[in-house]
């Protein structure tokens, strides 16, 4: 439907109502941040995944923990796209909106297209709530909702009625169960089984069985409400996927994938993992996830500030651990001096930047890709760092391992650029067999004979990683200018220039070890869409659709942003035009134009939200129309 893949709709008749079949549906739950919308969306997603759909989710929550109830800033939303086909994104526009109050209706209405289904909790449309949402009169039944299929459901009173006999719960506690009613109704609409969620309630509220049974009761009440009232005309069936690689699957967010990837890298090298970090949105879940993994010899250090976090990581790397930190733009700015020290000490570590809307504090919970130039150039002096960027949430797992491979092979800090979208978006992940992941070979020199701290591997130019505690190899290193090979402090002009060139060359040689860039679509032709990071889904889906329309469009998605892959120049030269969509004002565009003899067409967006498939598709159509832009 809103996925670019055209959906095949057909009528199916079955007892209990009309059932239409659709290949994919987008549903969005929206309510107060205390209404349990994240949990509701999560449960809908798990049930759909277990049912056999592809799923992609996007939570959208406020920066404030509890903004005033009933207001637009206090809203928390969760969007689920579920499909019989492969999904690329969490969907452009919802087919179904569940609005728990007037603010939820008001804030989300602009994202809907006519024909969409809206379920509102009519009990919440009180004078007071309408005022808090900025309505002067109720929108229900008015012109503003014409063309939508609106269902006014008394969620609160139905929930209370269902729990009339429930003992040991206050009215406020009963009202908290109303999200279960909405979920039950959604399960009925889309023919989902209730078992996964009932099991979840039983486990989550194991110590409060009355709460578990209340939620289960209300969940069923919501389901039966759909069945009995026939208020909802349309039931929709989204069959399970057919062509899926067999295996065991789970859902994974980008942050969860980074946790698993970092631990895996350390385990694959048989090293402890040291993770020094200061809490910051949207990177904190990585710290939280790793802190629970001490049995993997994970040593998490919640530092007193961002500077301490990078300092501790440098110290731990000197001490021989696999070391990593994560932050977001403002924290990365604070770490920049430390990262430069790491560059000069030539020690391996992984620095993750989960980008958010900037500058300054900006939009902590929203996504953006505007830190690419920060990580490349936001430090004093000539300061080269390899930069990698996963394209999807699940790929965060692979790229965390790849970042460590680069770090130890080339003895350098490595940046991994994630973003708020990848961090919070979840998608199915086929669970790999850990034995299928190659070990990470690490050599720590122990032979003092002929050892010099800055002697270099002839291929990679990496210096030896010698761990304190190794007899006979005591040495001192620091941030001062130095002579290559010996590493001795030197202020000589020639030594300085040689070191600057060596470090640059060392990082440039990372490109010798990269896999070829993957191209989708024609190997040459009219248009190449070149992207990086979390915009992959929108670009891939839009380009697929454009090719179906007969347009000559290829896509390449860069996982390596510094250095660029060696084949990139050749690839760029094979297309008449190059389109670069980015959630910034053209940072990759600037880098590409500086390096290669092409003029790129930028597509930029800085609204704290990911691209929609349609935005990219329309730009492709415009560029390739006879009146379109020409390079």
């Amino acid at each position, binding site marked *: 439907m809103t996925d670019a893949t055209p959906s095949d709709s057909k009528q199916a008749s079955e007892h209990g109502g009309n059932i239409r079949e659709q290949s994919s549906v987008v549903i969005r739950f929206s309510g107060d941040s205390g209404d349990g919308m994240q949990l509701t969306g999560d449960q809908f997603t798990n049930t759909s995944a277990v049912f056999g759909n592809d799923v992609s989710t996007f939570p959208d929550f406020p920066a404030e923990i509890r903004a005033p109830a009933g207001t637009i800033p206090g809203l928390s939303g969760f969007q689920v796209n579920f499909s019989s086909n492969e999904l690329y994104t969490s969907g452009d526009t919802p087919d179904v909106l569940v609005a728990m109050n007037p603010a939820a209706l008001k804030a989300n209405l602009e994202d809907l297209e006519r024909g969409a289904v809206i379920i509102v909790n009519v009990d919440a449309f009180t004078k007071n709530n309408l005022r808090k949402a900025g309505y002067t009169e109720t929108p229900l039944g008015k012109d503003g909702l014409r063309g939508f299929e609106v269902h006014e459901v008394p969620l609160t009173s139905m929930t209370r009625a269902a729990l009339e006999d429930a003992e040991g719960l206050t009215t406020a506690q009963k009202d908290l169960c109303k999200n279960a009613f909405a979920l039950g109704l959604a399960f009925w609409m889309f023919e989902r089984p209730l078992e996964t969620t009932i099991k979840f309630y039983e486990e989550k509220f194991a110590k409060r069985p009355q709460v578990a049974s209340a939620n289960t009761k209300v969940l069923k009440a919501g389901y039966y409400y759909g069945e009995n009232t026939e208020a909802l005309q349309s039931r929709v069936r989204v069959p399970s996927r057919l062509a899926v690689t*067999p295996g065991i699957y789970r859902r994974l967010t980008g942050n969860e994938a980074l946790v698993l990837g970092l631990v895996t890298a350390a385990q694959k090298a048989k090293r402890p993992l040291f993770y020094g970090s200061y809490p910051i949105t949207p990177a904190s879940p990585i710290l939280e996830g790793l802190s629970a993994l*001490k049995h993997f010899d994970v040593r998490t250090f919640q530092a007193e500030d961002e500077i301490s976090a990078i300092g501790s990581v440098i110290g731990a790397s000197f001490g021989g651990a696999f070391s990593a930190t994560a932050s977001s733009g403002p924290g990365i700015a604070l770490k920049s001096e430390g990262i430069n020290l790491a560059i000069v000490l030539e020690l391996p570590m992984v620095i993750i930047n989960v980008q958010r809307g900037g500058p300054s504090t900006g939009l902590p919970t929203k996504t953006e890709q505007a830190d690419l130039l920060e990580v490349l150039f936001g430090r004093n002096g000539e300061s080269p760092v390899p930069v990698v960027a996963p394209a999807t949430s699940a790929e965060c797992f692979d790229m965390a391992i790849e970042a460590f491979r680069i770090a130890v092979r080339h003895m350098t800090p490595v940046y991994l650029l994630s973003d708020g979208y990848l961090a919070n978006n979840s998608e199915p992940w086929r669970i790999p067999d850990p034995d299928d992941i190659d070990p990470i070979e690490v050599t720590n020199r122990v032979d003092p004979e002929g050892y010099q701290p800055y002697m270099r591997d002839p291929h990679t130019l990496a210096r030896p990683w010698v761990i304190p505690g190794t007899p006979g190899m005591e040495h001192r290193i620091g941030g001062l200018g130095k002579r290559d090979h010996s590493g001795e402090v030197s202020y000589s002009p020639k030594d300085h220039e040689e070191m600057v060139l060596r470090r640059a060359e060392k990082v440039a040689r990372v490109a010798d070890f990269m896999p070829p860039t993957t191209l989708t679509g024609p190997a040459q032709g009219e248009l190449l869409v070149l992207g990086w990071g979390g915009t992959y889904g929108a670009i891939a889906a839009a380009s697929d659709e454009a090719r179906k329309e007969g347009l000559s469009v290829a896509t390449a998605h860069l996982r390596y942003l510094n250095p660029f892959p060696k084949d990139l120049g050749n690839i760029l030269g094979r297309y008449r035009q190059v389109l670069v969509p980015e959630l910034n004002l053209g940072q990759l565009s600037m880098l590409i134009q500086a390096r290669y003899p092409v003029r790129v067409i930028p597509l930029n967006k800085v609204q704290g939200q990911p691209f929609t498939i349609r935005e990219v598709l329309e730009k492709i159509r415009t560029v390739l129309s006879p009146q379109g832009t020409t390079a």
Partner: protein
Amino acid sequence: MIEAVVDAPVTVDNKLTRKDFVSDQEVRWCPGCGDYAILAQMQKVLPEIGVAREQIVFVSGIGCSSRFPYYMNTYGLHSIHGRAPTLASGLKAANPDLSVWVVTGDGDGLSIGGNHLIHCLRRNMDVKIILFNNRIYGLTKGQYSPTSLPGHRTKSSPLGSIDYPLNALSVAIGAEATFVARTQDTNTKHLSEVLRRAAAHRGTAFVEVYQNCVVYNPTAWDHTTDPEVRDDNIVFLEEGEPLVFGKDADKGIRMNGQEPEVVELGNGVSRDDLIVHREGMKNTAYAYMLSRMEDPEMPLPFGILRCVDRPSYNQLLTSQIEAAVEESGSGDLAALYSSADTWSVES
């Protein structure tokens, strides 16, 4: 005077000598700098603490004192301004067998790195922090520091400093450091004894060393070095002994209500009336009171103000890891990957 308690892991032949700790680097401090004496004492003490040379790491920030690691033939990290405690913390967490030393100064440790210092102390990270205090910025050529006295005229305070200074010991005790001591560059015997005790401490050992900057603040410590007056300005703390000082050991410190006061011994005042030094008091109040004794009203306390047992961060971290392995077994990646709702897709 001070009993050295050596219970650090003994891993080597004890045949190392001072020379084994002298690096091949030419020392580049100004002639007459107090740093030379501290370096010499460190090189003298380290062979005696029973730790193999390769297990010792010196970490520093920026400043004259921070050149120290280059001159020690151990492992060394010369890092960035104020951040040495953070590198030392990560290093010790990654590699707990090492003996990790931080060398810092009044600017590096109390100004730009003040935040890191107090957090390292409160965590009781198992590192030794030696703070060279000369009440001036030396490497940047003579601006006032956070320990410069009010009214001090320097290049950046030509009319006199209007900053109130920090007292390094009070800061350390305020952060509940488990080992807090003061000594001086020129008093080499005392200095070496304090370093020995610091080396043996489990947890953060914080040592303030009065250090003379011969170029930019050469008179800062005259009242503690001039043989004519120094004994009247310093009280040496000795465990279980009353606080007695003065050239002829004729003065002491006793409590008057809630305040310490200086008294002359004799005329009915005996040693029994004086405060008896106890470095192991759990409550920080006594050590803090000592740290507030400042000249000219009171003698300056030298020695170990506080030395208490408290599990170090590193001991706690190691126990958590051991307990986690005990409870869940050594990490199993396959089990970790599957620790969520899963579903199976059949071929």
